[in-house]
């Protein structure tokens, strides 16, 4: 950063408003796709683990390994195969959501009180009806807790994908680092944090709307 230059140059902000908006959009898009795809995959794997309990160990072990690979390394590993592309970014992002989501879906369903399941079966619910009408609705609160963590994590990780040409707000962070330009750096970092907070707050609202029984008094 050049001496004498202010921490934030408001004129730069004003002249780049369009680009900032565009990057916010990209950031959200990368996040939504990652969490949605992660949720679909996790849901399938969770159902499998719930039906065949001895698969739960291997599934969490594998997704746990994925979770521990440093994100930079993962993207670098993928580039030779899938190039500098959205696909590369999403493969990485999705793989980080799996462990959290699967753990929460499985824990949520297993946490349904046994007597509720027993009553449902005793009244003539089929196994499928028990899953869809009893277990999953009751697991929603725990599943949402997982979605919130996955979303916040993903929003943070999206910034790293700037290194493979995507990045959302991460674009401004790399720009700021390359040019020693604090305004871009702050826009990128603060923008990402604000996005995470907003996304989390919206998810809380959605969850409250979907689980009225948890806050009836």
């Amino acid at each position: 950063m050049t001496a004498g230059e202010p921490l934030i140059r408001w004129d730069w902000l004003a002249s780049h408003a369009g680009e900032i908006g565009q990057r916010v959009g990209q950031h959200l898009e990368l996040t939504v796709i990652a969490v949605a795809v992660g949720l679909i995959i996790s849901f399938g794997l969770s159902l499998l683990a719930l039906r065949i309990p001895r698969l739960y160990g291997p599934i969490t072990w594998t997704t746990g390994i994925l979770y521990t690979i440093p994100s930079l390394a993962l993207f670098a590993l993928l580039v030779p195969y899938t190039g500098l592309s959205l696909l590369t970014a999403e493969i990485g992002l999705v793989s980080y959501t799996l462990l959290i989501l699967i753990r929460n879906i499985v824990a949520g369903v297993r946490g349904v009180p046994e007597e509720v399941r027993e009553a449902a079966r005793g009244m003539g619910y089929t196994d499928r009806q028990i899953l869809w009408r009893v277990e999953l609705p009751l697991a929603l609160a725990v599943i949402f807790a997982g979605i919130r963590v996955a979303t916040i994590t993903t929003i943070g990780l999206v910034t790293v994908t700037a290194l493979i040409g995507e990045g959302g707000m991460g674009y401004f962070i790399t720009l700021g680092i390359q040019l020693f330009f604090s305004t871009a750096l702050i826009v990128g970092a603060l923008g990402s944090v604000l996005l995470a907070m907003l996304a989390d707050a919206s998810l809380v609202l959605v969850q409250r709307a979907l689980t009225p029984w948890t806050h009836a008094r």
Partner: protein
Amino acid sequence: MAARRGATVELREVTKRYGETVAVDRLSFTAPAGRICVLIGPSGCGKTTSLRMVNRLIEPTSGEILIDGHNVLQEDPTELRRRIGYAIQQVGLFPHRTIGQNVATVPELLGWPAARIRARVDELLSLIGFEPARMRDRYPAQLSGGERQRVGVARAMAAEPPVMLMDEPFAAVDPIVRERLQNEFLQLQRAQGITVIFVTHDIDEAIKLGDRIAIMRAGRLVQYAPPAELLAHPADDFVARFVGSDRGLKRLALLTVGGAELDPPVDPSRLGGAPVLSPAMTLRDALSQMLASEAQVGMVRDGDNYLGVLTLSHIGRLLRSEQPT
């Protein structure tokens, strides 16, 4: 609603084995239509297992279970369960469904039209002493333990099942609430004419609710009889101990003053502090009042009608005559 006839439930030589353990051992009894049949016995004697075989939550190892002559083992288990009411101690209300939706569970599964479901839900909520408009849209977490038990029973009865299975449904509430729930349940059961198989480990509850009582021990049926007979003639020492050394008093609770032999009326002035008894009163309550007034006798009156005099020796004779030791 008109009283409907429940179904007859018959168990024939029903056995359930878990490896070496025999949970239920050649159990046979018939629960007559529209009656309450209580299964009782020490913990682990096979009550729950027996009950759960009737709606096939557990499959018998051998034997037959017939409902109105149809073998339940030849029916689709899910369809069967929708026709049999089921209520358990932990209730198991659906926390995410309102009280109204909980009660509507089986009618919904059976595809009743919405208007009929709604009418039935409101009817049942009223029957269990709830104001439908006030309670219908609450969630189970907003109810007290006793209220939840009531909803559990209403839910089990919702689709007008000919048979209901109940596993210690009132065991988790305090004695005062339990007594009220028992009374309400008896009224409901009589009004709807449902056949009930009712598991308990509480002999007083069994005597109060049961038309028949099946005493079990280690998976076997030891005695199957109406409560009065069980108290008067316990089949063996085990049953005698199980019903309690106060079984005489318990029997008195089943008999009324009106049914006892009386001495002809005597001038009240000669009876001193004798209590006034009504014919509907149980002999147990009559005895208690006589003892409390330090009187040997009680004056039996039906309103203004002076029927006669009940004496301690009448009560003693009743106990002795039907209780050979």
